[in-house]
């Protein structure tokens, strides 16, 4: 097993669909008596995440009686099940079978364009990040904007979207002292990851900007905008447009655009 944190992402090439290596069966780790972690790897790597998303998709296409819900993460799929409806052994056999299919189903992916206002009061760490990486704030923004991202997982709090595909030149350790409160819509980077945070909350990541897009909003259809596996690109907007978009988002507009992939 590869140790966590040492393997780096390569930025995605848009025209190439990487093939998930489906030869190795995943590890099945009971998470209590009503869930099982299907672990494809221990590090943040593209192959594991693709296999996670492929298994998740396979299970949504052919639902297994007794599975309650699935939670994709970077390197494992957490499968909640009802042990009164399906035995662990039978479930494990199904999961291994689906996870080791010779050709996992192709990812259906949507692409979102998400507007970001960078720097200043909206991205209070932009200057520090530029200093740490010995370049200019504009260069940091350019590198962040050029990234071709995929929603690897959502977690922690509603709508918090963890993106893979960060330019390796933007990789830097998280803050020593996490902030207790960071604003809604924060666009940030941490380690090899990029993030879109929806609700205000604590964060140890570096804040580059904000978006008016609410990945989670009650009384809007859909309540959750992004799905694991969705592709994401960012587009820069100025503070005035951000303010207008905030008002529109308040009224339930998506703000994010679906663009042809």
């Amino acid at each position: 097993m590869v140790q966590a944190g040492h393997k780096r992402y390569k930025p995605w090439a848009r025209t190439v669909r990487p093939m998930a290596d489906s030869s190795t069966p995943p590890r099945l780790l009971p998470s209590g008596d009503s869930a099982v972690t299907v672990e494809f790897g221990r590090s943040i790597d593209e192959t594991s995440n693709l296999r996670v998303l492929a298994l998740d998709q396979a299970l949504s296409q052919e639902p297994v009686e007794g599975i309650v819900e699935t939670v994709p993460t970077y390197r494992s799929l957490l499968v909640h099940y009802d042990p009164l409806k399906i035995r662990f052994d039978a479930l494990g056999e199904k999961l291994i079978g689906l996870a080791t299919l010779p050709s996992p189903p192709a990812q259906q992916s949507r692409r979102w364009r998400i507007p970001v206002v960078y720097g200043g009061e909206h991205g209070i760490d932009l200057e520090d990040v530029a200093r740490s990486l010995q370049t200019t704030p504009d260069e940091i923004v350019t590198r962040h904007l050029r990234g071709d991202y995929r929603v690897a997982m959502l977690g922690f709090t509603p709508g918090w979207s963890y993106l893979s595909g960060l330019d390796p030149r933007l990789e830097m350790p998280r803050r020593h002292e996490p902030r207790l409160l960071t604003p809604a819509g924060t666009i940030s980077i941490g380690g090899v990851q990029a993030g879109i945070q929806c609700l205000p909350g604590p964060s140890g990541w570096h804040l580059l900007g904000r978006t008016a897009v609410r990945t989670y909003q009650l009384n809007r259809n859909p309540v959750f905008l992004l799905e694991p596996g969705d592709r994401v690109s960012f587009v820069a907007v100025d503070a005035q447009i951000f303010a207008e978009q905030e008002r529109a988002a308040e009224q339930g507009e998506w703000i994010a655009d679906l663009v042809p992939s």
Partner: protein
Amino acid sequence: MTRLVVTTVGPASSVQDGGRPGSQRYGLAPGGAMDPLGLAVANILLGNDPFAAAVEIGPLGAAFTACDGALRLALAGASRVADIAGRPAAFDSTMIVKEGETLTLGNTRDGCFSYLALEGGIRGTPMFGSLSVNARAGMGSPYPRPLQAGDELPAQTAAIGSENRIELPRRADAPIRVIMGPQNDEFSEDAIALFLSTPWAVSAVSDRMGYRLEGPPLVHRHGHNIVSDGTVNGSIQVPGNGQPIVLMPDRGTSGGYPKIATVISADLGRLAQTPPGQRVRFQAVNLTEAHAELRAFADLIRTLPDRLRPADGSGVNIEALQDANLAGIAVSAIDPGTWQNERGESS
């Protein structure tokens, strides 16, 4: 409309039901009652669905008043001193609170959470199939936040009927059972032995998100960071300081600390009822044992209605005594303190 008005309430009191699983893939915690058995008992007493919404009342005292009609209520879970307009009210029983009367509850005596169910359930608008309060997500109905004094819960007027009580098996005072993993291989055999032998103290900073435990630090083999993966109710994660945190229904749906073990479903409510300062021990069981316990727990919930008995009449007697008591002093048939004098003789 008949309603239950919150007169006074402490922190950590909110409307909870069976929760809203199904959206953890979007970061939405399932929420729901900390002690599912307590919730189910309160509801079954009233003929409600076992996991209908009820008021989950935190450790401090609270008071509720019936407005514009009488209410039939039931109390279960952590016990406390309870009275209705001066008449003692029993746990694990239904009760009538007449219009204008107040049900007053003291602090918990054993445990953390009591459940106050309303006949016909709490009326509200489900979000993702649940009325449970998740303040961070802005979810919950009738209020998307913990309860405050002055809040009103719309309810049905008490139907004509008799009162019930329920006989429950005594809750075992045994170790909390766990299944090791999913990341127990991040810990040495010594650390695992320490985890299973330590009487852990429940920390005062525990809440609906997690119960923090205090004891000797558990040392990780490869550092305390793993790549974030999914959590469940009962995940026991060990952050850098080596002090375990048991994740509860309002947890983050993913976490980046190794999870040494997971509390079995049948025992999580018992852990939730362990007050700060009290100690808990863990005992490792295998999946077969955990599933047998889960089936037994499901059977207990399913057969709760078979355990209902007519209330023994003391409720009626208390009321009769109260009505007959011209001096207006509260008298209770089941609380000798109210009818014995200082020498222990009946007045």
